[in-house]
C-alpha cells in the first residue's frame, strides 16, 4: 500500500500521455501535456515527503521535516510548464487563424494538399531537359 501514491503518478502520466497521442484536437493535446506535467510535480512532491515529518520551518522542537528542495525544484518546473502551455495556446490561436481549424487531422490534410501542389510544380523541374548552356 505504501506505493499507492506513486501509482497515482503513473496513472496521471498515462492519462496525459494518452490524451496527447489520441486526441486530434490541439487544445486537448495541450491539456494532456498539462496533466502529464502535473504527474511529474506529484512525483517530486511525493519523494520529498518524510513519514511523520512536519513542514520544514526553522523552529524549536522540529527535528523531523519534509525535504524542502524538491518543492523548490518543482516550483521552477511549474513556471516552465505554465510558460510552455501559454506558448502552446498562443500557437493554437495563430493556427486557428491561419487554418480555420485546430484539428490535427485537418491540419495534416491541409498541409498535404499544399505539399502535393508544390511537389507537382517541382516535378516539372526534374522532367525538364538538362541543358549545358544557360539561357
Amino acid at each position, binding site marked *: 500500500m505504501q506505493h499507492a501514491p506513486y501509482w497515482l503518478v503513473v496513472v496521471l502520466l498515462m492519462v496525459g500521455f494518452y490524451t496527447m497521442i489520441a486526441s486530434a484536437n490541439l487544445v486537448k493535446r495541450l491539456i494532456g501535456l498539462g496533466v502529464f506535467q502535473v504527474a511529474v510535480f506529484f512525483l517530486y512532491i511525493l519523494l520529498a515527503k518524510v513519514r511523520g515529518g512536519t513542514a520544514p520551518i526553522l523552529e524549536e522542537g522540529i527535528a523531523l521535516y519534509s525535504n524542502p528542495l524538491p518543492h523548490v525544484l518543482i516550483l521552477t518546473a511549474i513556471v516552465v510548464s505554465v*510558460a510552455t502551455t501559454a506558448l502552446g495556446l498562443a500557437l493554437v490561436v495563430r493556427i486557428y487563424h491561419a487554418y480555420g481549424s485546430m484539428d490535427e487531422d485537418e491540419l495534416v490534410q491541409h498541409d498535404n494538399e499544399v505539399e502535393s501542389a508544390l511537389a507537382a510544380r*517541382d516535378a516539372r523541374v526534374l522532367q525538364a531537359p538538362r541543358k549545358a548552356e544557360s*539561357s
Partner: protein
Amino acid sequence: MEFGWGAHLPILQVIVVLLAAPLAFLTRRVRAAWLIAFIASAIALWIASRLLIQVQQDGVIVYQLGGWAAPMGIGYHIDLLNAFMLVLVSAISTIALPYSLRSIENELSAHSQPLFYVYWLLCVAGLLGILATGDAFNVFVFLEISALSTYALIALGSDRGGDRRALHASLRYLLLGSIGATFIVIGIGLLYMMTGTLNMMDLAARLPAVEDTRTVHAAFAFLVIGTGLKAAMFPLHTWLPDAYTHAPSATSVLLAGTSTKVAIYVMLRFLISVFGFEFSFIGIHVELWLLPLAVLAILYGSLCAVYQMDAKRLLAYSSVAQVGYIFLAISIGSAAGIAAGLIHMFNHALMKAVLFMAIGAVVYRAGGSRLFHIAGFGRAMPWTFGALLLGGMSLVGVPFTVGFISKWYLVTSSLDTYGLALVVFVLASSLLAALYVWRLVDVAWFRPVMHERELQEAPLSMLLPMWVLVLANVYFAFDSDLTVGIAQRTAAVLLGGAP
C-alpha cells in the same frame, strides 16, 4: 578562490548572453537588437575560447554560484568536453548572426525582426547554460529556456505571408519537445530520489552504491529517451524535418548547427559522466539499442532525403541521418568511438551550417527553397552554389573536407568492434548522401530557370559568413589536430578508468 574577472568566466559565459536578451528587447530596433546580439555572441565566443585554453592548461574548472558549495548550491563544471562544445555553439552563433541580418530583413516583418534576435539570444543562452552547468536540474531549466525560444524562432517562419505550416511545425515540436523535457525531469527526479543530490559529480560518486535498483534503471531509460527525443534520434526524429523546413532560414542555420548536438552532449554527459561508462555500456549495454537505431536512422534519413523536393527538408532528413552517424560512433563504446562521435558532432555542425546558409541565400533571391526555386540558379549565384557544393562534398565525405575526417575516424574506430560489415555500411550510406547532394547540384546547374525572379548573387553579408564556414570545412580537414586532438583527449578523460 581568486577575485578577478577570470574566475567568473563560467557564469559570464551564460549570463552575458542571457542579459543581452532583455536588453535587445528594450531597444525595439532591428539594427540595435542585432548589434547587441552580435556583441554578446562574440563575447561568449571569446569567453569560451578562454575557458578552453584554461581547461587545457589547468584541468577542470569548478565554479560555485554565489559561493555556495557544490552539494547545496549550483556548481558549474567546465571540463574539456563542454569547453569544446561551448566554443562550437558560440562560434556558430557568432558566424550566423551577420548572415541572418539580411536574411531576416527579407523574411520577417519589421515588427518581428527585433524579437527574432531576442529569441536567438535566449536560445543561445539556454544552450550555453546546458553545456556549462554541472547540476542536473539546472540542465532541465536551461533546456526549457532554449526549447521555448526555439519554438518561437520556428513559428516566426509564418510571419509576413510566410508559410503557415511553420506554426504547425512549431506546435508539434512543442508537444514532442515537452514530452522529452518532462522525461528528463522524471529521470532526474528518480536519481534524486536514490541519491539525494543533483550535482553531477556527486551523482556519479553515489550512484554505484544503488545502481542495481529498478529506480536507477528507470531513470536511465527516461533520460536516454528524453535526450534522444531532443537529439532527433530515430525514431524520435519526427519533429525535426518540419521544424527545419518551415523555420526562417537563419533559424535553420542555428538549429542545425547547435541544438541537436547539445542534446547529444546531454545524453553523453549522463551516459558517461553521471551513470559511468561501466554502468551504461558494460552493465546495461546501451550500445545494443543505439547501434540498430543509428543504422536505421542513417538508412531512413538518407533514403528520405533522396526523394525530397524541398532543399531545406532534404537537408533536415540528412541531419537525421548524420545524427545517426554520431550515435553509431558512440555505440562503438570505446574511447576511439566516442572521440569519433565528438569529431563528427563538430564537423557536422560546420557542414550543415554552410548548407543551410547556402539554401537561405537562395531563399533570399528566389523566394523559396524548393527545387522550383533552385532550378538553373547555379550560374547566377556561383559563390552560393560553390559553397553548397563544397558543403555537400563535406557531407558525403570527400577527401580534403572535414566530412572525410569524420568518416575516417568513424570507420577506423568501428573496425575493431564491429568489423568490416559496418565499414561497408558507412561507405554505402555515403553513396546515398552523394545521391541527394547530386540532386541539388543537378537542379541548380543543369535544369532551366523556372521563374521570373532576377538572377543575382547573394549579398556580401550573407556570402562572407558562408565562406568563413566553407574555409573552416577545409581548414579543419588539414589541421585536424585541433578537433581530433581535443576529441580524443576528451574521450580518454571521460572514460577515465574504463578499459
